[in-house]
């Protein structure tokens, strides 16, 4: 009896499945996303995908939180090699070459059928596209993109006798201001550092701000040649080391990335360099008036971009690819991008997003949000090469060796270049 009942249920369920599959062209999409800015970002992504699913009942999107950026690429590549890649995923822009090398992703160009689609592909800020295209094809669509900016504590500036509304515009000014802002107590312990440029984990990113300002590019567009031993790179590294060793305006040694906002809130550092991804956090938690400025210039202004792009994976059906394309087009459209930017602080990747009423209201009440966008004009592609993880590890190790004083900047960089060369020469 029970057996019969089970049989009939199974059969009717199978029939039901067959009928739904036959009648509607339902498309199932799996979408992996990383979160680097706290729990709320995951809720925003979930809300956006739900909204899309409600408007498009024939598409079912399963948004899967996949950990940090590192975890996400591990999870995605494992799934791809295991034969079940997601249809789309947000992964670091710099991992583009790795994904191409694994033959996991497809360019967007082939999916853009109409003129409107083709125009859409070219509607993003060029600074963000620098990390999203190679060989004339677009492999990534900018989504959670950021750039580092300088945050300064206006009250500390006032206390130090500086104009609270003028951030440092050049390296010299940053050092000069930093000296005034660095305070020591009666025992000679520093209670407030002038500036803080975090260097733990991935020091190459903020350091790329310094190299760009020193007018040198770290790797070519094809991603197969690095430029670490350029004298200008060594000069930039020397400047970073001098901030703590010679000028004594920054805490010596490796400076922790994760606790940087906290140090800023608690007055342990008067100026910090960190990502715009922190904007909402700083706005909510800084107990004082703060300003946001472009990074100071040396030979020129400059900063890298950072953050994640959308990728579409190869191993899916044509319907799934088309649906993924449509979803990405929708979520990066002005209305949705505005919601995302306001919730997180990431830089809206298209000019027209900034024209939406929601964004206009947002920047009217919070003009600091515009700084990152304006800095894009001077921004360059984040360091990205083939074998990206290995190359950046080599480079990070060299930077850390110089920062902790175990090697001179020039020596450390020369060794890093030799190691990178050994890996990359196979890719030319």
């Amino acid at each position, binding site marked *: 009896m029970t057996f019969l009942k089970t049989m009939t249920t199974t059969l009717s369920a199978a029939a039901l499945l067959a009928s739904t599959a036959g009648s509607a062209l339902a498309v199932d999409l799996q979408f992996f996303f990383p979160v680097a800015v*706290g729990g709320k970002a995951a809720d925003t992504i979930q809300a956006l995908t739900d909204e899309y699913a409600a408007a498009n009942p024939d598409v079912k999107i399963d948004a899967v*939180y*996949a*950990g940090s950026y590192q975890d996400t690429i591990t999870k995605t590549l494992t799934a791809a090699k295991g*034969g079940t890649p997601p249809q789309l995923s947000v992964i670091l822009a710099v991992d583009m070459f790795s994904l191409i090398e694994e033959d996991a992703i497809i360019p967007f160009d082939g999916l853009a059928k109409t003129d409107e689609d083709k125009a859409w592909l070219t509607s993003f800020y060029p600074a963000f596209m620098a990390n999203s295209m190679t060989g004339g094809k677009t492999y990534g669509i900018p989504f959670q993109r950021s750039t580092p900016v300088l945050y300064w504590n206006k009250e500390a500036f006032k206390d130090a006798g500086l104009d609270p509304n003028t951030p440092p515009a050049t390296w010299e000014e940053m050092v000069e201001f930093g000296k005034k802002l660095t305070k020591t107590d009666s025992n000679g312990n520093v209670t407030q550092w002038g500036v803080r440029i975090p260097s733990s984990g991935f020091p190459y990113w903020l350091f790329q701000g310094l190299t760009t300002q020193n007018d040198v590019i770290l790797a070519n567009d094809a991603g197969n040649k690095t430029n670490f031993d350029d004298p200008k790179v060594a000069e930039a590294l020397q400047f970073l080391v001098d901030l703590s060793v010679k000028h004594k305006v920054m805490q010596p040694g490796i400076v922790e990335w*994760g606790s940087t906002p906290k140090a800023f809130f608690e007055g342990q550092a008067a100026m910090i360099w960190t990502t715009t*991804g922190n904007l909402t956090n700083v706005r909510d938690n800084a107990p004082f008036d703060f300003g946001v400025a472009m990074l100071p210039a040396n030979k020129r202004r400059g900063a890298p971009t950072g953050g994640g792009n959308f990728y579409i994976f190869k191993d899916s059906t044509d319907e799934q690819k088309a649906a993924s394309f449509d979803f990405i087009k929708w979520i990066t459209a002005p209305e949705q991008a505005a919601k995302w930017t306001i919730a997180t602080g990431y830089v809206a990747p298209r000019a027209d997003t900034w024209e939406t009423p929601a964004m206009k209201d947002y920047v009217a009440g919070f003009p600091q949000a515009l700084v990152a966008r304006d800095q894009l004009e001077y921004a360059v592609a984040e360091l990205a090469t083939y074998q990206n993880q290995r190359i950046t590890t080599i480079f990070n190790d060299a930077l850390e060796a110089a920062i902790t004083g175990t090697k001179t900047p020039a020596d450390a960089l020369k060794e890093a270049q030799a190691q990178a060369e050994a890996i990359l020469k196979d890719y030319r």
Partner: protein
Amino acid sequence: MMATRFDRWLNTLGAWTLALIWFLPLIYAVWTAIHPGAYATRFELFAPLTLENFSNAWNAAPFARYFLNSFLLVTFILIGQFVLCTLAAYAFVRFTFPGRGILFALVLLQLLVMPDILIVENYATMRKLGLVDTIAAIGLPYIASGFGIFLLRQTFKTVPKELEEAARIEGAGPLTVLWRVYVPLAKPTYLAYGLVSVSHHWNNFLWPLIVTNSVETRPVTVGLSIFSSVDQGVDWSIINAATLMTSGPLLIAFLLFQRQFVQSFMRAGIR
């Protein structure tokens, strides 16, 4: 006389110092978890107490479901490991069959292989079995534990043959012998191995993250990871509240059964 007293004093001092050093991070975690964020890095005896960090952490992810998943996961793995490792170890100890040496060498080899290397291969296997995104998929690769087999084999070897022979004379078959003679004598080993296994799988992160996709299957560690948001800076109060919350069940269990655990570690020879 003088020397022994000095010796004992030195021992006590050493033990206390080590215990304190071991305990400090935990004290720090408790301190930050029960105070507002502003007191995370400074000490003030009468700082206001709060439980808000816990409620914030609890609400940041569906932890109730994650706890259930973790609990099911470690139970499933533990039962699987006990059954499989017991039978395998028994076979290695008391039966002679062709290829026994080679098979045991393979088991030992497993101890040398980092599980992380096998992630891609394991994922492909789970997909072929149609198990991706299930709790079984998280546990299965760990069930045939080389360490467990090895440990139980060593323990079974110490069981005097006479006990087994006595049981045989009473008419017990091989499985009854295992159940009545070997398993009861290896209890401390089971307890010690169970603790190691449960705490390892309770804390495992990467493999569960990779092989699961939905709230219904993910364990607490995956829920915990949303707090480590590097771009935004780390909020120690909430992280520590969440960490205490997720490691709480294990900590409490350990404190409750501390004596048994310590004794079984002594007997089982794992330290």
